[in-house]
Protein backbone atom coordinates (compact mmCIF):
# COMPACT_ATOMS: atom_id res chain seq x y z
CA UNK A 1 0.00 0.00 0.00
CA UNK A 2 2.77 2.37 0.91
CA UNK A 3 4.54 1.83 -2.43
CA UNK A 4 1.32 2.46 -4.31
CA UNK A 5 0.83 5.80 -2.67
CA UNK A 6 4.27 6.79 -3.86
CA UNK A 7 3.56 5.88 -7.49
CA UNK A 8 1.45 8.90 -8.26
CA UNK A 9 3.89 11.55 -6.97
CA UNK A 10 6.75 9.67 -8.63
CA UNK A 11 4.97 9.75 -11.98
CA UNK A 12 4.31 13.45 -11.53
CA UNK A 13 7.99 14.11 -10.88
CA UNK A 14 8.93 12.09 -13.94
CA UNK A 15 6.49 14.02 -16.08
CA UNK A 16 7.80 17.34 -14.85
CA UNK A 17 11.43 16.39 -15.37
CA UNK A 18 10.64 15.18 -18.88
CA UNK A 19 9.01 18.52 -19.58
CA UNK A 20 12.04 20.35 -18.26
CA UNK A 21 14.45 18.10 -20.16
CA UNK A 22 12.47 18.55 -23.33
CA UNK A 23 12.53 22.32 -23.06
CA UNK A 24 16.16 22.67 -22.10
CA UNK A 25 17.79 19.61 -23.62
CA UNK A 26 20.65 20.91 -25.75
CA UNK A 27 20.92 17.53 -27.46
CA UNK A 28 17.37 17.55 -28.73
CA UNK A 29 17.21 16.70 -32.39
CA UNK A 30 16.50 19.93 -34.25
CA UNK A 31 16.67 18.79 -37.86
CA UNK A 32 15.68 15.73 -39.88
CA UNK A 33 18.31 13.91 -41.96
CA UNK A 34 16.98 15.62 -45.11
CA UNK A 35 17.23 19.01 -43.48
CA UNK A 36 20.77 18.33 -42.30
CA UNK A 37 21.65 17.58 -45.92
CA UNK A 38 20.10 20.89 -47.04
CA UNK A 39 21.92 22.83 -44.31
CA UNK A 40 25.25 21.29 -45.23
CA UNK A 41 24.67 22.21 -48.89
CA UNK A 42 24.55 25.85 -47.76
CA UNK A 43 27.71 25.72 -45.69
CA UNK A 44 30.97 27.27 -46.86
CA UNK A 45 32.59 23.95 -45.98
CA UNK A 46 31.24 22.54 -49.27
CA UNK A 47 32.24 25.52 -51.43
CA UNK A 48 34.23 24.12 -54.34
CA UNK A 49 37.54 25.59 -55.49
CA UNK A 50 37.20 28.67 -57.68
CA UNK A 51 36.55 27.61 -61.28
CA UNK A 52 39.22 28.76 -63.75
CA UNK A 53 38.57 31.70 -66.07
CA UNK A 54 40.00 30.47 -69.37
CA UNK A 55 39.33 33.85 -70.97
CA UNK A 56 41.86 35.50 -68.63
CA UNK A 57 45.39 34.05 -68.87
CA UNK A 58 46.52 35.97 -65.75
CA UNK A 59 43.41 35.23 -63.69
CA UNK A 60 45.36 33.31 -61.05
CA UNK A 61 48.69 35.12 -61.34
CA UNK A 62 49.57 36.80 -57.99
CA UNK A 63 51.51 39.54 -59.82
CA UNK A 64 48.38 40.35 -61.84
CA UNK A 65 46.31 40.41 -58.65
CA UNK A 66 48.83 42.80 -57.08
CA UNK A 67 48.66 45.14 -60.08
CA UNK A 68 44.88 44.83 -60.14
CA UNK A 69 44.65 45.70 -56.47
CA UNK A 70 46.64 48.90 -56.98
CA UNK A 71 44.47 49.96 -59.93
CA UNK A 72 41.33 49.04 -57.96
CA UNK A 73 42.14 51.74 -55.40
CA UNK A 74 43.73 54.25 -57.81
CA UNK A 75 41.52 57.34 -58.25
CA UNK A 76 43.65 58.54 -61.17
CA UNK A 77 41.61 56.07 -63.22
CA UNK A 78 38.69 58.50 -63.50
CA UNK A 79 37.72 61.69 -65.30
CA UNK A 80 37.82 63.79 -62.14
CA UNK A 81 40.67 62.04 -60.35
CA UNK A 82 38.38 61.17 -57.45
CA UNK A 83 36.78 57.84 -58.40
CA UNK A 84 38.23 54.35 -58.07
CA UNK A 85 36.59 50.91 -58.20
CA UNK A 86 36.75 51.06 -54.40
CA UNK A 87 34.51 54.15 -54.37
CA UNK A 88 31.50 51.86 -54.80
CA UNK A 89 33.10 48.54 -53.87
CA UNK A 90 34.41 49.40 -50.42
CA UNK A 91 36.38 46.67 -48.64
CA UNK A 92 35.03 47.75 -45.24
CA UNK A 93 31.47 47.27 -46.56
CA UNK A 94 32.04 43.86 -48.10
CA UNK A 95 32.73 45.61 -51.40
CA UNK A 96 29.42 47.46 -51.53
CA UNK A 97 28.85 51.15 -50.75
CA UNK A 98 25.87 51.42 -48.41
CA UNK A 99 24.03 53.65 -50.88
CA UNK A 100 20.98 52.91 -53.04
CA UNK A 101 22.77 54.18 -56.18
CA UNK A 102 26.44 54.13 -57.00
CA UNK A 103 28.17 57.51 -56.92
CA UNK A 104 31.06 57.98 -59.32
CA UNK A 105 31.65 60.99 -61.54
CA UNK A 106 27.85 61.10 -61.61
CA UNK A 107 25.09 59.04 -60.04
CA UNK A 108 24.51 55.53 -61.42
CA UNK A 109 20.90 54.42 -60.88
CA UNK A 110 21.92 50.87 -59.91
CA UNK A 111 22.94 49.37 -56.58
CA UNK A 112 26.59 48.29 -56.40
CA UNK A 113 26.75 44.51 -56.03
CA UNK A 114 29.29 42.93 -53.72
CA UNK A 115 32.39 41.45 -55.35
CA UNK A 116 32.86 38.82 -52.64
CA UNK A 117 32.58 35.43 -54.31
CA UNK A 118 31.52 37.02 -57.63
CA UNK A 119 34.29 35.11 -59.40
CA UNK A 120 32.18 31.96 -59.06
CA UNK A 121 29.39 33.38 -61.17
CA UNK A 122 29.19 32.78 -64.92
CA UNK A 123 27.52 36.19 -65.26
CA UNK A 124 28.42 39.56 -63.77
CA UNK A 125 26.15 42.48 -62.79
CA UNK A 126 22.40 42.48 -62.08
CA UNK A 127 21.45 41.67 -65.67
CA UNK A 128 24.49 39.55 -66.49
CA UNK A 129 25.74 41.82 -69.26
CA UNK A 130 29.26 40.41 -68.85
CA UNK A 131 30.50 36.83 -69.01
CA UNK A 132 33.71 37.52 -67.09
CA UNK A 133 34.96 39.76 -64.33
CA UNK A 134 37.56 41.33 -66.61
CA UNK A 135 35.05 42.39 -69.25
CA UNK A 136 32.79 43.70 -66.48
CA UNK A 137 35.58 45.82 -65.00
CA UNK A 138 35.91 47.71 -68.31
CA UNK A 139 32.35 49.02 -68.43
CA UNK A 140 32.44 51.37 -65.41
CA UNK A 141 35.79 52.76 -66.58
CA UNK A 142 34.18 54.14 -69.76
CA UNK A 143 30.72 54.88 -68.37
CA UNK A 144 30.18 58.65 -68.23
CA UNK A 145 28.47 58.37 -64.82
CA UNK A 146 31.02 56.02 -63.23
CA UNK A 147 34.76 56.59 -63.88
CA UNK A 148 34.00 58.73 -66.92
CA UNK A 149 37.26 58.06 -68.76
CA UNK A 150 38.13 56.49 -72.09
CA UNK A 151 40.50 53.77 -73.17
CA UNK A 152 43.43 55.80 -74.56
CA UNK A 153 43.38 57.84 -71.31
CA UNK A 154 43.70 54.58 -69.33
CA UNK A 155 46.40 53.20 -71.65
CA UNK A 156 48.41 56.41 -71.13
CA UNK A 157 47.97 56.05 -67.32
CA UNK A 158 49.37 52.52 -67.47
CA UNK A 159 52.35 53.67 -69.55
CA UNK A 160 52.99 56.50 -67.12
CA UNK A 161 52.51 54.76 -63.76
CA UNK A 162 52.51 50.97 -64.18
CA UNK A 163 54.71 50.26 -67.23
CA UNK A 164 57.06 47.91 -65.35
CA UNK A 165 54.36 45.77 -63.76
CA UNK A 166 52.36 45.76 -66.98
CA UNK A 167 55.16 44.66 -69.30
CA UNK A 168 56.26 41.94 -66.87
CA UNK A 169 52.78 40.44 -67.12
CA UNK A 170 51.59 41.22 -70.64
CA UNK A 171 54.69 42.05 -72.68
CA UNK A 172 55.68 45.39 -74.20
CA UNK A 173 53.27 48.30 -74.24
CA UNK A 174 52.62 49.95 -77.59
CA UNK A 175 54.54 53.19 -78.04
CA UNK A 176 51.86 55.70 -77.14
CA UNK A 177 54.10 58.78 -77.42
CA UNK A 178 52.67 59.99 -80.73
CA UNK A 179 49.64 62.03 -79.57
CA UNK A 180 48.15 62.20 -83.06
CA UNK A 181 48.05 58.41 -83.29
CA UNK A 182 47.11 57.94 -79.63
CA UNK A 183 45.13 61.00 -78.47
CA UNK A 184 44.99 61.65 -74.71
CA UNK A 185 41.23 61.00 -74.85
CA UNK A 186 39.74 58.52 -77.29
CA UNK A 187 37.26 55.68 -76.96
CA UNK A 188 33.76 54.56 -77.98
CA UNK A 189 32.22 56.69 -75.25
CA UNK A 190 29.44 59.28 -74.84
CA UNK A 191 31.87 62.21 -74.79
CA UNK A 192 31.76 63.51 -78.38
CA UNK A 193 35.39 64.63 -78.77
CA UNK A 194 36.80 61.36 -77.46
CA UNK A 195 34.37 59.39 -79.58
CA UNK A 196 35.40 61.25 -82.76
CA UNK A 197 39.07 60.87 -81.83
CA UNK A 198 38.53 57.14 -81.53
CA UNK A 199 36.93 56.93 -84.96
CA UNK A 200 39.90 58.70 -86.55
CA UNK A 201 42.44 56.22 -85.15
CA UNK A 202 43.62 53.38 -87.41
CA UNK A 203 42.17 49.92 -86.76
CA UNK A 204 45.63 48.68 -85.74
CA UNK A 205 46.11 51.47 -83.22
CA UNK A 206 42.62 50.93 -81.85
CA UNK A 207 43.41 47.24 -81.49
CA UNK A 208 46.64 48.02 -79.63
CA UNK A 209 44.74 50.25 -77.19
CA UNK A 210 41.95 47.68 -76.81
CA UNK A 211 44.54 45.14 -75.81
CA UNK A 212 45.94 47.38 -73.06
CA UNK A 213 42.39 48.17 -71.94
CA UNK A 214 41.47 44.46 -71.80
CA UNK A 215 44.63 43.73 -69.81
CA UNK A 216 43.66 46.38 -67.24
CA UNK A 217 40.43 44.44 -66.81
CA UNK A 218 42.31 41.14 -66.53
CA UNK A 219 44.53 42.51 -63.75
CA UNK A 220 41.49 43.91 -61.91
CA UNK A 221 39.74 40.54 -62.26
CA UNK A 222 42.81 38.72 -60.91
CA UNK A 223 42.49 40.86 -57.78
CA UNK A 224 38.71 40.39 -57.57
CA UNK A 225 39.15 36.62 -57.73
CA UNK A 226 40.93 36.83 -54.37
CA UNK A 227 37.79 38.26 -52.69
CA UNK A 228 36.21 35.09 -51.36
CA UNK A 229 33.51 34.53 -48.75
CA UNK A 230 34.63 33.79 -45.21
CA UNK A 231 32.85 31.62 -42.63
CA UNK A 232 29.92 33.07 -40.72
CA UNK A 233 28.19 32.01 -37.50
CA UNK A 234 25.80 29.99 -39.66
CA UNK A 235 28.71 27.88 -40.95
CA UNK A 236 29.88 27.16 -37.41
CA UNK A 237 26.34 26.12 -36.52
CA UNK A 238 26.10 23.68 -39.44
CA UNK A 239 29.51 22.26 -38.54
CA UNK A 240 28.22 21.67 -35.00
CA UNK A 241 25.35 19.44 -36.17
CA UNK A 242 25.75 15.68 -35.99
CA UNK A 243 24.16 13.42 -38.60
CA UNK A 244 20.97 13.29 -36.53
CA UNK A 245 20.58 17.07 -36.60
CA UNK A 246 21.65 17.60 -33.00
CA UNK A 247 23.90 20.59 -32.33
CA UNK A 248 26.97 19.67 -30.29
CA UNK A 249 28.78 21.94 -27.86
CA UNK A 250 27.85 25.49 -26.93
CA UNK A 251 24.73 26.96 -28.58
CA UNK A 252 25.72 28.92 -31.69
CA UNK A 253 22.34 30.11 -32.97
CA UNK A 254 19.50 31.21 -30.71
CA UNK A 255 15.92 29.93 -30.97
CA UNK A 256 14.72 32.76 -33.21
CA UNK A 257 17.64 32.33 -35.58
CA UNK A 258 17.02 28.59 -35.77
CA UNK A 259 13.32 29.20 -36.38
CA UNK A 260 14.29 31.69 -39.11
CA UNK A 261 16.61 29.13 -40.70
CA UNK A 262 13.74 26.62 -40.68
CA UNK A 263 11.59 29.14 -42.55
CA UNK A 264 14.47 29.87 -44.94
CA UNK A 265 14.75 26.25 -46.06
CA UNK A 266 11.03 25.47 -45.67
CA UNK A 267 7.99 27.70 -45.79
CA UNK A 268 9.99 30.66 -47.11
CA UNK A 269 11.20 28.66 -50.15
CA UNK A 270 14.25 30.95 -50.07
CA UNK A 271 16.54 28.14 -51.18
CA UNK A 272 14.71 27.97 -54.51
CA UNK A 273 17.10 30.73 -55.60
CA UNK A 274 19.40 31.40 -52.65
CA UNK A 275 20.95 27.94 -52.66
CA UNK A 276 24.46 26.53 -52.41
CA UNK A 277 27.23 27.82 -50.15
CA UNK A 278 27.09 31.34 -51.63
CA UNK A 279 23.31 31.48 -51.20
CA UNK A 280 22.79 32.20 -54.90
CA UNK A 281 22.05 30.12 -57.98
CA UNK A 282 23.60 32.80 -60.24
CA UNK A 283 20.44 32.72 -62.32
CA UNK A 284 18.02 35.50 -63.33
CA UNK A 285 14.61 35.81 -61.74
CA UNK A 286 11.73 38.23 -61.84
CA UNK A 287 10.27 38.58 -58.37
CA UNK A 288 8.18 41.70 -59.02
CA UNK A 289 10.60 44.00 -57.25
CA UNK A 290 9.29 47.52 -57.86
CA UNK A 291 11.51 49.94 -59.77
CA UNK A 292 13.14 53.03 -58.33
CA UNK A 293 10.60 55.89 -58.31
CA UNK A 294 11.30 58.40 -61.05
CA UNK A 295 13.62 56.14 -63.05
CA UNK A 296 12.89 53.98 -66.09
CA UNK A 297 12.16 50.33 -65.27
CA UNK A 298 15.17 48.06 -65.61
CA UNK A 299 14.50 45.45 -68.30
CA UNK A 300 16.94 43.08 -66.66
CA UNK A 301 18.27 39.96 -68.32
CA UNK A 302 16.82 40.67 -71.77
CA UNK A 303 19.16 43.68 -72.04
CA UNK A 304 22.05 41.77 -70.49
CA UNK A 305 21.79 39.06 -73.15
CA UNK A 306 21.83 41.56 -76.01
CA UNK A 307 24.76 43.42 -74.48
CA UNK A 308 26.99 40.41 -73.81
CA UNK A 309 26.39 38.97 -77.28
CA UNK A 310 27.73 42.17 -78.84
CA UNK A 311 30.56 42.79 -76.39
CA UNK A 312 33.97 42.75 -78.18
CA UNK A 313 35.47 41.84 -74.80
CA UNK A 314 33.35 38.73 -74.27
CA UNK A 315 34.81 35.22 -74.04
CA UNK A 316 34.48 34.64 -77.80
CA UNK A 317 35.99 38.01 -78.75
CA UNK A 318 39.50 38.82 -80.00
CA UNK A 319 40.79 39.87 -76.56
CA UNK A 320 39.78 36.67 -74.80
CA UNK A 321 42.40 34.02 -74.03
CA UNK A 322 39.89 31.17 -74.22
CA UNK A 323 39.37 28.60 -76.92
CA UNK A 324 35.81 29.09 -78.23
CA UNK A 325 34.62 25.76 -76.81
CA UNK A 326 35.63 26.94 -73.32
CA UNK A 327 33.15 29.82 -73.52
CA UNK A 328 30.40 27.72 -72.00
CA UNK A 329 28.37 30.60 -70.53
CA UNK A 330 27.90 32.11 -73.99
CA UNK A 331 27.61 28.81 -75.84
CA UNK A 332 24.69 27.63 -73.73
CA UNK A 333 23.16 31.01 -72.92
CA UNK A 334 19.37 31.29 -72.84
CA UNK A 335 18.60 33.91 -75.49
CA UNK A 336 14.82 33.78 -75.70
CA UNK A 337 11.74 33.05 -73.65
CA UNK A 338 9.55 34.88 -71.18
CA UNK A 339 11.97 34.56 -68.26
CA UNK A 340 14.36 37.20 -69.62
CA UNK A 341 12.28 40.36 -69.31
CA UNK A 342 12.70 41.84 -65.84
CA UNK A 343 14.98 39.04 -64.68
CA UNK A 344 17.70 40.07 -62.22
CA UNK A 345 20.57 37.96 -60.93
CA UNK A 346 20.02 36.36 -57.54
CA UNK A 347 22.41 38.18 -55.20
CA UNK A 348 24.46 36.30 -52.62
CA UNK A 349 23.10 36.51 -49.07
CA UNK A 350 26.47 36.20 -47.40
CA UNK A 351 27.05 39.38 -45.35
CA UNK A 352 23.57 40.52 -46.38
CA UNK A 353 22.85 42.18 -43.02
CA UNK A 354 25.88 44.41 -43.60
CA UNK A 355 25.15 45.33 -47.22
CA UNK A 356 21.97 47.42 -47.12
CA UNK A 357 20.22 48.81 -49.06
CA UNK A 358 18.79 46.01 -51.17
CA UNK A 359 17.62 45.09 -54.67
CA UNK A 360 18.94 46.29 -58.01
CA UNK A 361 18.28 49.95 -57.35
CA UNK A 362 18.65 49.80 -53.58
CA UNK A 363 14.93 50.51 -53.32
CA UNK A 364 14.57 48.62 -50.03
CA UNK A 365 16.44 50.12 -47.10
CA UNK A 366 16.14 47.24 -44.65
CA UNK A 367 15.99 43.45 -44.56
CA UNK A 368 12.55 43.81 -42.96
CA UNK A 369 11.33 45.52 -46.14
CA UNK A 370 12.79 42.75 -48.28
CA UNK A 371 11.13 40.04 -46.19
CA UNK A 372 7.86 41.99 -46.29
CA UNK A 373 8.06 42.08 -50.11
CA UNK A 374 8.50 38.31 -50.38
CA UNK A 375 5.82 37.74 -47.76
CA UNK A 376 3.24 40.02 -49.33
CA UNK A 377 4.05 39.43 -52.99
CA UNK A 378 4.00 41.97 -55.76
CA UNK A 379 2.92 42.78 -59.26
CA UNK A 380 5.53 42.76 -62.02
CA UNK A 381 5.29 45.87 -64.20
CA UNK A 382 7.58 44.13 -66.69
CA UNK A 383 7.67 40.45 -67.56
CA UNK A 384 6.46 37.37 -65.76
CA UNK A 385 6.40 37.41 -61.96
CA UNK A 386 7.81 34.24 -60.37
CA UNK A 387 6.97 35.27 -56.82
CA UNK A 388 4.12 33.69 -54.89
CA UNK A 389 3.50 35.44 -51.56
CA UNK A 390 4.82 33.62 -48.50
CA UNK A 391 2.22 35.04 -46.10
CA UNK A 392 4.58 34.99 -43.13
CA UNK A 393 3.32 35.99 -39.69
CA UNK A 394 5.02 38.99 -38.09
CA UNK A 395 6.92 36.60 -35.84
CA UNK A 396 8.07 34.45 -38.77
CA UNK A 397 9.23 37.52 -40.68
CA UNK A 398 11.24 38.66 -37.66
CA UNK A 399 12.75 35.19 -37.27
CA UNK A 400 13.71 35.02 -40.94
CA UNK A 401 15.40 38.37 -40.61
CA UNK A 402 17.18 37.20 -37.45
CA UNK A 403 18.55 34.23 -39.38
CA UNK A 404 19.88 36.45 -42.18
CA UNK A 405 22.07 38.17 -39.60
CA UNK A 406 23.89 34.88 -38.97
CA UNK A 407 25.39 35.01 -42.50
CA UNK A 408 27.82 37.81 -41.67
CA UNK A 409 31.42 36.67 -41.82
CA UNK A 410 33.22 36.44 -38.50
CA UNK A 411 36.61 37.99 -37.82
CA UNK A 412 39.42 35.54 -38.51
CA UNK A 413 40.63 33.88 -35.31
Amino acid at each position, binding site marked *: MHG*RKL*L*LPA*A*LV*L*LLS*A*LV*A*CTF*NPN*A*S*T*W*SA*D*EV*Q*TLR*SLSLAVLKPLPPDPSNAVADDPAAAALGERIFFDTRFSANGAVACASCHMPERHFTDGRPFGVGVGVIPLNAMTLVGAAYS*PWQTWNGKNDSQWSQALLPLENALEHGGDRTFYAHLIAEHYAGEYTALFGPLPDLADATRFPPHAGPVDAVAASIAWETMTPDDRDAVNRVFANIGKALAAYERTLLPKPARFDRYVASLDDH*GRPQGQPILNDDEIAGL*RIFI*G*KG*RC*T*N*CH*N*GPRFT*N*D*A*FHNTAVPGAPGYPLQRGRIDGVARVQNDPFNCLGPYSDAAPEAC*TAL*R*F*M*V*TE*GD*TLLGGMKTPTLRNVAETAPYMHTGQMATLAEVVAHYSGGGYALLG*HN*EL*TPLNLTAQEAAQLEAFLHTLTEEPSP
Partner: protein
Amino acid sequence: MSPAKLVLLLLTVLLTALLAGCMAPAGMAATPTGSTLPADLDFSATRLSDNGLFRATYTSDATPVPLNELHAWTLHIESADGAPVENAVIHVNGDMPEHGHGMPTTPQVTQELGNGDYRVEGMRFQMGGWWAITFDIEAGGQRDRVTFNLQLK
Protein backbone atom coordinates in the same frame (compact mmCIF):
# COMPACT_ATOMS: atom_id res chain seq x y z
CA MET B 1 -9.97 0.43 -12.50
CA SER B 2 -9.38 2.57 -9.43
CA PRO B 3 -9.16 6.36 -9.90
CA ALA B 4 -5.50 6.25 -8.87
CA LYS B 5 -4.71 3.67 -11.55
CA LEU B 6 -6.55 5.71 -14.12
CA VAL B 7 -4.55 8.81 -13.27
CA LEU B 8 -1.37 6.78 -13.40
CA LEU B 9 -2.27 5.42 -16.82
CA LEU B 10 -3.10 8.88 -18.11
CA LEU B 11 0.18 10.22 -16.81
CA THR B 12 2.11 7.41 -18.47
CA VAL B 13 0.43 8.12 -21.79
CA LEU B 14 1.19 11.84 -21.43
CA LEU B 15 4.80 11.15 -20.55
CA THR B 16 5.25 8.86 -23.55
CA ALA B 17 3.67 11.37 -25.90
CA LEU B 18 5.83 14.14 -24.53
CA LEU B 19 9.04 12.15 -24.87
CA ALA B 20 8.16 11.08 -28.40
CA GLY B 21 7.43 14.66 -29.36
CA CYS B 22 10.65 15.75 -27.74
CA MET B 23 12.79 13.30 -29.65
CA ALA B 24 11.28 13.69 -33.10
CA PRO B 25 12.93 16.33 -35.24
CA ALA B 26 10.80 19.42 -35.06
CA GLY B 27 11.24 19.95 -38.78
CA MET B 28 9.09 17.00 -39.71
CA ALA B 29 5.99 19.12 -39.36
CA ALA B 30 7.43 21.95 -41.44
CA THR B 31 7.40 20.44 -44.93
CA PRO B 32 6.64 23.11 -47.53
CA THR B 33 3.07 22.93 -48.66
CA GLY B 34 1.50 23.56 -52.02
CA SER B 35 3.43 20.93 -53.98
CA THR B 36 1.70 19.62 -57.05
CA LEU B 37 4.13 16.75 -57.53
CA PRO B 38 2.23 13.86 -59.13
CA ALA B 39 2.32 10.77 -56.91
CA ASP B 40 3.22 8.26 -59.63
CA LEU B 41 6.21 9.98 -61.27
CA ASP B 42 8.76 7.65 -62.83
CA PHE B 43 12.27 8.80 -61.95
CA SER B 44 14.10 6.08 -63.91
CA ALA B 45 17.15 6.97 -65.96
CA THR B 46 15.93 4.63 -68.72
CA ARG B 47 12.55 5.37 -70.28
CA LEU B 48 10.51 4.57 -73.33
CA SER B 49 9.53 7.43 -75.60
CA ASP B 50 5.89 8.55 -75.65
CA ASN B 51 4.96 6.35 -78.62
CA GLY B 52 7.34 3.55 -77.75
CA LEU B 53 9.67 4.12 -80.71
CA PHE B 54 12.86 4.63 -78.69
CA ARG B 55 14.29 3.52 -75.39
CA ALA B 56 16.62 6.17 -73.96
CA THR B 57 19.02 6.20 -71.03
CA TYR B 58 20.83 9.19 -69.56
CA THR B 59 24.00 9.19 -67.52
CA SER B 60 25.30 12.36 -65.90
CA ASP B 61 29.03 13.18 -65.77
CA ALA B 62 28.40 14.61 -62.32
CA THR B 63 26.59 12.44 -59.78
CA PRO B 64 24.34 13.07 -58.06
CA VAL B 65 23.06 15.56 -60.62
CA PRO B 66 24.29 18.84 -59.06
CA LEU B 67 22.79 22.29 -58.61
CA ASN B 68 24.53 25.35 -60.07
CA GLU B 69 27.16 23.39 -61.89
CA LEU B 70 27.57 23.13 -65.63
CA HIS B 71 27.94 19.49 -66.57
CA ALA B 72 27.35 17.05 -69.42
CA TRP B 73 25.10 14.03 -69.92
CA THR B 74 25.42 11.09 -72.24
CA LEU B 75 22.17 10.03 -73.85
CA HIS B 76 21.95 6.50 -75.16
CA ILE B 77 19.18 5.80 -77.64
CA GLU B 78 18.08 2.44 -78.95
CA SER B 79 15.08 1.19 -80.82
CA ALA B 80 12.35 -0.68 -78.98
CA ASP B 81 14.07 -3.95 -79.96
CA GLY B 82 17.44 -2.82 -78.60
CA ALA B 83 19.34 -1.67 -81.72
CA PRO B 84 21.47 1.50 -81.23
CA VAL B 85 19.94 4.52 -82.97
CA GLU B 86 22.49 6.41 -85.11
CA ASN B 87 22.31 9.83 -86.79
CA ALA B 88 19.53 11.12 -84.61
CA VAL B 89 18.65 14.80 -84.48
CA ILE B 90 17.95 15.66 -80.85
CA HIS B 91 16.52 18.72 -79.12
CA VAL B 92 16.79 19.13 -75.36
CA ASN B 93 14.48 21.03 -73.06
CA GLY B 94 14.37 21.19 -69.28
CA ASP B 95 11.35 22.40 -67.34
CA MET B 96 10.17 22.77 -63.75
CA PRO B 97 6.45 22.01 -64.08
CA GLU B 98 5.73 23.39 -60.60
CA HIS B 99 7.48 26.70 -61.23
CA GLY B 100 6.69 27.52 -64.86
CA HIS B 101 10.30 28.02 -65.86
CA GLY B 102 13.12 26.03 -67.33
CA MET B 103 16.87 25.77 -67.12
CA PRO B 104 19.33 28.69 -66.91
CA THR B 105 21.12 27.25 -69.95
CA THR B 106 20.21 25.93 -73.38
CA PRO B 107 21.74 22.45 -73.47
CA GLN B 108 22.72 20.97 -76.81
CA VAL B 109 23.73 17.66 -78.25
CA THR B 110 27.30 18.43 -79.31
CA GLN B 111 28.64 15.09 -80.45
CA GLU B 112 27.52 11.68 -81.64
CA LEU B 113 29.75 9.22 -79.83
CA GLY B 114 28.69 6.06 -81.67
CA ASN B 115 26.78 2.98 -80.56
CA GLY B 116 23.67 5.15 -80.05
CA ASP B 117 25.42 7.46 -77.57
CA TYR B 118 25.17 11.26 -77.76
CA ARG B 119 26.97 13.88 -75.70
CA VAL B 120 24.67 16.53 -74.21
CA GLU B 121 26.54 19.64 -73.04
CA GLY B 122 25.34 22.71 -71.18
CA MET B 123 23.26 20.97 -68.51
CA ARG B 124 22.73 23.21 -65.49
CA PHE B 125 20.03 23.27 -62.83
CA GLN B 126 19.46 26.28 -60.62
CA MET B 127 16.77 24.98 -58.29
CA GLY B 128 15.94 21.92 -56.24
CA GLY B 129 12.64 20.14 -56.91
CA TRP B 130 10.94 18.29 -59.74
CA TRP B 131 12.47 18.66 -63.19
CA ALA B 132 11.18 17.21 -66.45
CA ILE B 133 13.88 16.89 -69.11
CA THR B 134 12.55 16.15 -72.57
CA PHE B 135 14.49 14.93 -75.57
CA ASP B 136 12.80 15.26 -78.93
CA ILE B 137 14.40 12.59 -81.06
CA GLU B 138 14.20 12.32 -84.84
CA ALA B 139 15.86 9.33 -86.47
CA GLY B 140 15.21 7.17 -89.52
CA GLY B 141 12.28 9.35 -90.52
CA GLN B 142 10.59 8.81 -87.18
CA ARG B 143 10.04 11.27 -84.40
CA ASP B 144 9.25 10.75 -80.73
CA ARG B 145 9.76 12.33 -77.34
CA VAL B 146 11.22 10.89 -74.16
CA THR B 147 10.89 12.58 -70.78
CA PHE B 148 13.06 12.02 -67.71
CA ASN B 149 11.89 13.13 -64.28
CA LEU B 150 14.43 14.26 -61.73
CA GLN B 151 14.00 15.22 -58.10
CA LEU B 152 16.94 17.47 -57.30
CA LYS B 153 18.15 18.58 -53.89
